[in-house]
């Protein structure tokens, strides 16, 4: 078979697929066929490149040319210019926002420079639907090594030594978790991959499943071998059709190639994997709730202990790890714990994938070594704040996390530092906010989410969060009192202290952290009835600029509640008591004399 001389990698992640990347790949292929180049140039639909802000992404290898925001109609030009003539299509290249220069080679882009891709090592690089490509990148070599050269205890020891901690939120040491499960004896044990990513704005697990599904299969098999389980289950969100498809394809291929099934690598060890579908419940990310959901029940958490490692799925010892955690496993086995534990900080080893979002230039999925600072992430990788506005806060950890401020920008990111700062790692959402974001409204946004996703089992979460939301609503509407703030503080503390599961215990974090870091803003809402970000509609006031108004009466005539007074040809005024903030006056004013304050 003739070797392909060039490879065109087209991002086949959900984000890029949503903006027609599949069609781009098809057009590239048909253009190649027309030019008779289909045997020389290969088009591959890969997993997510991470740089979603500028999707769809097309990358040409081996010269590493990175095209952004490609449209199907660009396919012809890419083939005719780049492939045939070797001329890069300049207009599709990434432009450095600061230097205003085109950056051709992806390695030199600010977005990628500081990243270290371990969990995402194969995403955006291999064809996820081709097991051969995974094997070519050392795939299944780790499980082969475990099964043929290592005892289960050695595998556990290696993971323990690596210092890997759970990437799903809690940060529990993975090796220790495996060890507990291995020591509980039972006729049947289970390995469960938690792919019920529910954190709004976090999509690393989905990207890994879409871009490198075999790494999860391999890691789960290693996990099964280590703890003595022969059955694996992936609990995956039904809202992730592409990830489900890729995983199904990968499982079928793995079975066909004999790396999943009976007597793996000629040993006595057998392992197989099945899929279980989530049905839209954030709380199912909590492992006991997840297990109940897999058993076909309401996904309500139960008190631990018993831990799943003692009594989990169908009351059998069960080890639950999240997708990103698993993605780290094969490479740790191959490169060794001592390679891995050199990356990161003292207590947090390796890398972490973050979903960078919000008012930032480079929205996307990034993987960085633990210990990197927020400043590096936001300004170097993220390319700074959109529109050159002022940084205000960064929210990490999603609904379970908190808002960090300017003073935390140089804190090295790791599990413990984030908790100490009043937030948490969570699954890796990172939302950057500028001065247009109201911190009270942001706390309310997260609480709305928690309220909607609360399972309702325990009273602090079911009723307490609702009451906190009502208080926040009151405050954003300008009806809050200082007593409300006191109640809010007490409630947040009690909910954190008494809720049944992790979701409930962490649900007050967005409030607690904003109360701590943005107390003034709360007080402003309560005492001055002002929202400095201009985000709380009820606190906004319509004002007529007396120096601009000519007294044309257009506003007064059109005001539906007669809130505007003034003599003809003299500046008008708005009676704020009557004003319903409908915006009609602004629409009618020809002199831009009316503004919102």
């Amino acid at each position, binding site marked *: 078979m003739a070797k392909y001389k060039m*490879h065109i990698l087209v991002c086949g992640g959900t984000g890029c697929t949503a903006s027609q990347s599949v069609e781009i790949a098809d057009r590239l292929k048909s253009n190649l066929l027309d030019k008779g180049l289909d045997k020389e140039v290969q088009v591959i639909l890969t997993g997510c490149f991470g740089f979603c802000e500028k999707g769809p992404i097309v990358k040409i290898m081996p010269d590493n040319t990175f095209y952004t925001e490609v449209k199907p109609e660009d396919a012809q030009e890419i083939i005719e210019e780049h492939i045939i003539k070797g001329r890069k299509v300049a207009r599709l290249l990434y432009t450095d926002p600061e230097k205003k220069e085109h950056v051709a080679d992806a390695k030199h882009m600010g977005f990628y420079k500081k990243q270290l891709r371990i969990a995402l090592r194969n995403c955006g690089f291999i064809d996820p639907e081709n097991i051969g490509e995974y094997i070519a990148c050392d795939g299944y070599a780790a499980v082969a090594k475990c099964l043929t050269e290592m005892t289960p205890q050695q595998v556990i020891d290696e993971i323990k030594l690596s210092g890997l901690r759970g990437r799903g939120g809690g940060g529990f040491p993975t090796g220790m978790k495996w060890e507990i499960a291995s020591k509980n004896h039972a006729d049947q044990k289970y390995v469960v991959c938690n792919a019920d990513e529910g954190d709004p704005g976090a999509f690393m697990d989905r990207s890994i499943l879409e871009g490198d599904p075999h790494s999860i299969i391999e890691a789960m098999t290693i996990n099964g071998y280590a703890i003595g389980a022969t059955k694996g289950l992936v609990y995956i969100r039904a809202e992730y059709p592409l990830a489900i498809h890729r995983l199904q394809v990968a499982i079928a291929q793995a079975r066909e190639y004999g790396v999943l099934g009976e007597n793996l690598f000629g040993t006595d060890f057998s392992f197989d994997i099945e899929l279980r579908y989530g049905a839209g419940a954030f709380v199912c990310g909590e492992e006991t709730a997840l297990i109940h959901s897999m058993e076909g029940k309401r996904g309500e958490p139960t008190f631990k202990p018993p831990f799943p490692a003692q009594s989990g799925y169908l009351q059998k010892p069960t080890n639950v790890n999240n997708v990103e955690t698993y993605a780290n496993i094969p490479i740790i086995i191959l490169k060794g714990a001592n390679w891995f534990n050199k990356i990161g900080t003292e207590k947090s080893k390796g890398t972490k994938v973050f979903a960078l979002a919000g008012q930032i230039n480079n929205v996307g999925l990034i993987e960085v070594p633990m210990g990197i600072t927020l400043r590096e992430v936001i300004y170097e990788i993220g390319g700074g704040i959109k529109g050159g506005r002022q940084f205000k806060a960064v929210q990490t950890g999603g609904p379970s996390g908190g808002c960090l401020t300017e003073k935390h920008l140089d804190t090295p990111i790791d599990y413990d530092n984030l908790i100490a700062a009043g937030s948490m790692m969570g699954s890796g959402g990172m939302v950057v906010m500028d001065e247009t974001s109201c911190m009270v409204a942001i706390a309310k946004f997260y609480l709305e989410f928690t309220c909607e996703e609360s399972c309702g089992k325990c009273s602090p979460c079911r009723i307490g969060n609702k009451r906190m939301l009502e208080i926040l609503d009151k405050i954003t509407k300008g009806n809050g009192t200082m007593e409300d703030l006191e109640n809010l503080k007490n409630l947040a503390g009690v909910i954190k202290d008494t809720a049944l599961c992790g979701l409930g215990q962490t649900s007050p974090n967005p409030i607690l952290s904003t109360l701590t870091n943005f107390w003034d803003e709360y007080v402003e809402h309560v005492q001055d009835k002002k929202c400095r970000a201009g985000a709380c509609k009820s606190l906004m006031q319509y004002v007529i600029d007396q120096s601009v108004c000519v007294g044309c009466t257009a506003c007064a005539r059109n005001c539906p509640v007669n809130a505007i007074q003034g003599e003809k040809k003299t500046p008008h005024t708005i009676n704020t008591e009557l004003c319903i903030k409908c915006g009609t006056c602004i629409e009618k004013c020809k002199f831009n004399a009316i503004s919102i304050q």
Partner: protein
Amino acid sequence: MAQIKSLEDLQALKNSVQEEIDTRVKGNRDGLVQVKVAMATCGITAGAKTIYNYLLEQVDKRSMDVVVYQTDCMGLCKDEPTVEVSIPGKDSVIFGNVDTNKVDEILDKYIQKGETVSGVVSK
């Protein structure tokens, strides 16, 4: 497809598929020797395509850690086909009027042994 039943099976399979992905792997790695063939219309007319194919073939044959790719016209149209070689830490050089023999020479002498090879048209 025969099932993978041992470490050796896996290694054998890996070797057979490695090649397909090699072009990509090399592109992603830093510190590799880069060989670029100017493949604009002028170059192709002068036979750059044959050179490009021959380069790929020979790099493979020699199992060299060299990444080969095409590039735009280097502006040395009179010397086509041209090949630019960049060795990390050294200035890149461009060889003109390259034929298959010259390719062998570039690979064996210039890249592997660091010897001087004639035909450099530009530095």
